[in-house]
């Protein structure tokens, strides 16, 4: 067992480039915003000999007090990455640091709470009993259980067996379980799954409330991009096992802005502008991939070509559109 641990550490040391990059980033982070609570460098997982590479070389950093979104399509490697972070899956290579200390597989996570697989619980036990079992496993007493049940709105159903719970109730119990040890980092895998609109809203408020005082951080994976856009400070996008982007939500949304222009004749306007900017006809307008600072130049060219311009306005794409654009581009490049 020990030999395996040593081997894993040796493999980790091979990730020199990543480690250096991470160290540099670490230095910046500690000077700038919140300290890094979770640092991942070159994390990879391959199943079988020469088999499927589920996760390849993922490096990311989660800072104190932020909600970090981990986005990816189904099968992109989100859950595998999360399971490696929780010590459920042994990485093939790579390193994980939690609160500035190396994390090794098999080490209990004292300051981390988690929700995976929509709240996996003992179906023959009540919701309260499940939390009691988990509290004992974590070496805690039952003091926080009633408060948490109230916080997630399950006090009335806490005596019922979990097998009778709806998906949303399990999910809420899962959040209570994740908060049981009063963690500094909460890892949530698809926390909004199975929740109705009101439930999603409550979950959003709960998560934002957790990080409100800046001491806790949330790392969440989701495919509900609208939720992520509203909830997360920074996001990472994973596609086919590889991390293809890590940025703040604001950076991503403003990265590829467009100008929507209503002009006549539309085709002629497209011809004039397409020499300098990518543009396409979208409905009754022309969508020009250009930044707001290009607007005067665009307007001048259209007027010079005797095209009547009725309106010109910047458009902001949703996170969903940005996500699709990034992942589609990666697919095309591959």
């Amino acid at each position, binding site marked *: 067992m020990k030999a395996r641990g040593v081997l894993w550490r040796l493999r980790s040391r091979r990730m020199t480039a990543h480690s250096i990059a991470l160290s540099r980033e670490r230095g910046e982070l500690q000077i700038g915003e919140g300290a890094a609570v979770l640092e991942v460098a070159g994390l990879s997982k391959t199943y079988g000999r020469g088999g499927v590479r589920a996760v390849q070389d993922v490096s990311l950093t989660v800072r104190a007090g932020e909600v970090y979104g981990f986005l990816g399509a189904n099968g992109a490697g989100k859950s595998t990455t999360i399971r490696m972070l929780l010590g459920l899956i042994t990485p093939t290579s790579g390193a994980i640091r939690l609160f500035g200390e190396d994390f090794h597989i098999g080490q*209990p996570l004292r300051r981390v709470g988690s929700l995976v697989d929509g709240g*996996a619980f003992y179906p023959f036990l009540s919701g309260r009993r499940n939390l009691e079992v988990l509290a004992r*496993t974590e070496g805690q007493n039952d003091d926080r259980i009633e408060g948490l049940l109230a916080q997630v709105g399950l006090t009335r159903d806490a005596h019922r067996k979990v097998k009778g719970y709806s998906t949303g109730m399990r999910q809420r119990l899962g959040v209570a379980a994740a908060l049981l040890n009063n963690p500094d980092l909460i890892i949530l895998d698809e926390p909004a799954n199975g929740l109705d609109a009101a439930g999603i809203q409550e979950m959003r408020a709960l998560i934002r409330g957790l990080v409100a005082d800046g001491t806790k951080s949330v790392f969440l994976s989701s495919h509900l991009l609208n939720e992520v856009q509203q909830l997360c400070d920074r996001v990472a996008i994973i596609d086919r096992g590889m991390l293809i982007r890590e940025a703040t939500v604001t950076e991503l949304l403003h990265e590829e802005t467009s100008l929507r222009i209503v002009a006549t004749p539309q085709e002629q306007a497209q011809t004039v502008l397409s020499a300098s900017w990518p543009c396409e006809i979208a409905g009754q307008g022309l969508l020009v991939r250009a930044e707001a600072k290009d607007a005067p130049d665009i307007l001048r060219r259209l007027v010079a070509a005797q095209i009547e311009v009725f309106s010109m306005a910047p458009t902001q794409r949703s996170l969903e559109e940005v996500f699709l654009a990034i992942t589609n581009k990666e697919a095309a490049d591959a």
Partner: protein
Amino acid sequence: MRNLIAAEKRKLLPHKATWLLVWVYPIVITVALIIGLLSKLWGAPAPADDPVTAAAWIADTAFVWHIPSMALFRYLIGAYFAVVFAGEYGWNTWKLVVPHAARWKLLTAKYLVATGFLYLAWFLAALATVLVTLVRAGLLPEPVPTDVTAFGILSGHFQILSLGIIPVVLTALYASLAAILTRSTLASCIITIVAVTMDDLFGKIVQALSALGMTWLAVPYRVLPGYHLENVANWAQKGAAFQLKLMDGTVIVYPQAFSFAVLAAWILGLGLITFVSFRRQDIN
């Protein structure tokens, strides 16, 4: 570890399997003994039994402790351990607990609690047997031999109890290893049944097939736990080695210490494989 044991207790106590495969012993045995007593009380008067010796009286009250050595009950013990270990895969709950405790501790807590429950159940069943037998002695012409003492009962029971410890540990290891490797309660039960049956019947198979010249089967028989379980029990009960005579005249016989060593090797080996397998396992 105390916390993990408390967690495991809270988890397993209300589970159906604990009632069906553990608490069933004291319940069924007590009910059967009471029915036996009532039928004697209200049935036709039977001639008084011959007086028994203290040793025989104690051995009668200690029949419960033979349960762990009997193949049929080892199947049930294996089934319980299969539920305890493979259940976590079925319920998908390893993900809930593994991040918060060392894996070896989680397994150890399971072994301790499941074994503790079983021995508690057998203890209660043995206690009920002694109590009902004492009540019978007061109500029926079945007097307790005068030289029966509390210490005699305790030591007599412990002697038989000790015979069952190795079979219980082996059964637990068969079931838990099968559970970790297959992640399925049903598969673990089947594998445990096969392993226990091998322990119980392989000697007879080897003996029978030796008549057909298949004496090579004696080689695995010498290293598998079956012979050595029987040998240890024989030494404890009869003070002599268990001998298996093959048709070609070969006699398989080993000293007690050798059988203990082989069984210890099996227990350590299976335990090590179980812990290492679980330590390295990806919980998807």
